[in-house]
């Protein structure tokens, strides 16, 4: 007891009292946090209950692991899990390196106006909504009237039913991610690249290094910390890969590959009102996500200690 009292700076309570107006500033955000973040977290317990609106989150009858067992035993389980992981990993591996490469090239453009132009064009899709991006895909990929299939037939091919084929879902999902989201990351990398001292490049040129060598030995090490941070963020979001886009791109014909955990939760939970069952699936998703995040943090921390990044 007395130790605690001694180690504390004197008058914490008085200090807190003096700062009550500052607490008042943070209060609205805290109220929001409790209502819309912590209350749903508390509500996760319906995954172990048979939720009904009358008894609420904590009063509904307890059923244990029943909903999880039903999900793990369902024919949906393996396919949905596989679809989710495949889509997430492929999406990350393909879409993540693209803005890094683009940034290195844009950064090496000498002409200031051209650099601004390219940068501006590549950035602009960031402002286009997912609904419109997917809408563009439906219009441009339409088997009868779409631009892409006109090109395909022009070169003597058969029109492809892009939005209705399971095998086209992943390529389209990933390439539209690249199209829509590269620009945002590009800007972040360019900011990191602009912090690199130009004198390094001048010195390297005097030493006879060509552009590849300068990129490889100056630019790449310069943005590596930023790459690691953005990669961590991407891994943290792995299981949530823009499922809104998956939902928008989903048609009855491509469900075989487009049904991921979150779209399944949406259909089972909100469309068919199986609240507890889908809350259990959602919880399963969150737990995998958390495990990935923690694992990755540990790995990165170790790597950092080793390399001193």
């Amino acid at each position, binding site marked *: 007891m007395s130790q605690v009292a001694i180690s504390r700076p004197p008058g914490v309570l008085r200090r*807190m009292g003096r*700062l009550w*107006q*500052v607490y008042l*500033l*943070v209060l*609205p*955000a*805290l109220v*929001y946090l409790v209502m*819309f*973040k912590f*209350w*749903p977290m*508390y*509500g996760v317990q*319906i995954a172990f209950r048979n939720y009904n609106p009358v008894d609420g989150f904590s009063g509904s009858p307890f059923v244990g692991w029943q909903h999880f067992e039903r999900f793990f035993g369902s024919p949906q389980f393996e396919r949905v899990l596989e679809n989710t992981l495949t889509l997430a990993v492929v999406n990350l591996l393909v879409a993540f390196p693209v803005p890094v490469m683009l940034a290195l*090239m844009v950064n*090496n*453009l*000498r*002409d200031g106006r051209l650099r601004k132009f*390219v*940068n501006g*064009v*590549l950035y602009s899709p960031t*402002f*286009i909504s*997912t*609904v*419109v991006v*997917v*809408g*563009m895909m*439906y*219009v*441009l990929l*339409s088997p009868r009237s779409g631009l892409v299939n*006109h090109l395909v037939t*022009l070169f003597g091919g058969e029109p492809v039913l892009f939005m209705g084929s399971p095998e086209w879902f992943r390529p389209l999902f990933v390439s539209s991610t690249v*199209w829509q989201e590269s620009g945002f990351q590009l*800007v972040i990398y360019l*900011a990191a690249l602009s912090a690199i001292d130009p004198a390094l490049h001048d010195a390297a040129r005097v030493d006879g290094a*060509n*552009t*590849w060598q300068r990129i490889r030995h100056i630019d790449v090490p310069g943005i590596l*910390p930023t790459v690691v941070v*953005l990669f961590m963020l991407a891994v*943290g979001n792995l299981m949530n890969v823009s499922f*809104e886009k998956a*939902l928008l791109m989903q048609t009855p014909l491509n469900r075989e590959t487009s049904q991921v955990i*979150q779209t399944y*939760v*949406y259909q089972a*939970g*909100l469309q068919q009102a199986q*609240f507890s069952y889908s809350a259990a699936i*959602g919880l399963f998703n969150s737990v995998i996500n*958390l495990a990935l*995040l923690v694992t990755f943090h540990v790995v990165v921390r170790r790597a950092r200690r080793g390399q001193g990044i």
Partner: protein
Amino acid sequence: MGSTVQVTARRVIGVRRRGRTGGSLGDRVYTVVAAGVLGAAVLAIVYPLYFIVVASFSEPDAVNDGRVWAWPEGFTLDGYERLLGDARVWRGIGNSLLYTSLATALSVALILSAGYALSRKDLPGRNLITALFLITLFFDGGMVPRYLVVKDLGLLNTVWAMVLPNAVAVWNLLIARTYFRSAIPGEVREAAQLDGASELRFFFQVVLPLAKPLVAVLVLIHLVWNWNAFFDALIFLTDESKFPLQLVLRNILVQSELSATGNLSSDLASYAEQQRVGELVKYGMIVVSTLPLLIVSPFAQKYLNRGGVAGALKG
């Protein structure tokens, strides 16, 4: 001709001429690769958008048969006429304006005030409070409990379902906190307090005016987010008259609801005719809904760069 292109390309891509040889082989290869990749990337973004604009003004038959590539074929404004005669589109725009402005105002207000409070190093408990926010980055209740909470609060089918559930974006809160730490020196506050300014007065009269670049960035980010959001509207709103533009767009573009042509569709001769114009309406919808954002984008980019969103990531 060829050498002019090469010289221009070399100047543009930024490989410095070395002596009379025109750069090493490596540099020349780089120039070609970079010009190819960046050219392809720019084309991949510009051409689809350009084509959609062109197609939206063209005779639907010409578009559907693949005769339109670079220039409108048989200029027509039919698509726009039908689209702008559709009451759902106008209602969607009105709803989106309302939701976007309310949600942005609330988010920015909450983030600024909380971000400032948490940037105060003399505030007992600030680490605990920050940790509470950080938890939500690692774990959340998921879609279903979130829906049930909004339902229990009686917010379904109200404006507030579009405004409250996403009010605080934790990343932006962290950006704000970092900004305030560097932008508001402790000495300024002590001086103001010696003059008898209360904490709240200091926040409103000194801190906020100093935070203008931050406010601009936050407003911009949230405007774009809120304007483009559709999923919350999908789950929280069932009343069609409350649908924001993105949900209307989704029903027309993705679900292909042919009634997109609205009340005017009754005068169309046949189903085939309706479908023909339906495609035209889709091109027009994409243009109308995207153009305002693309026009704003260069300015937005300037602000975002200046506000140092990227810089805050390092903090």
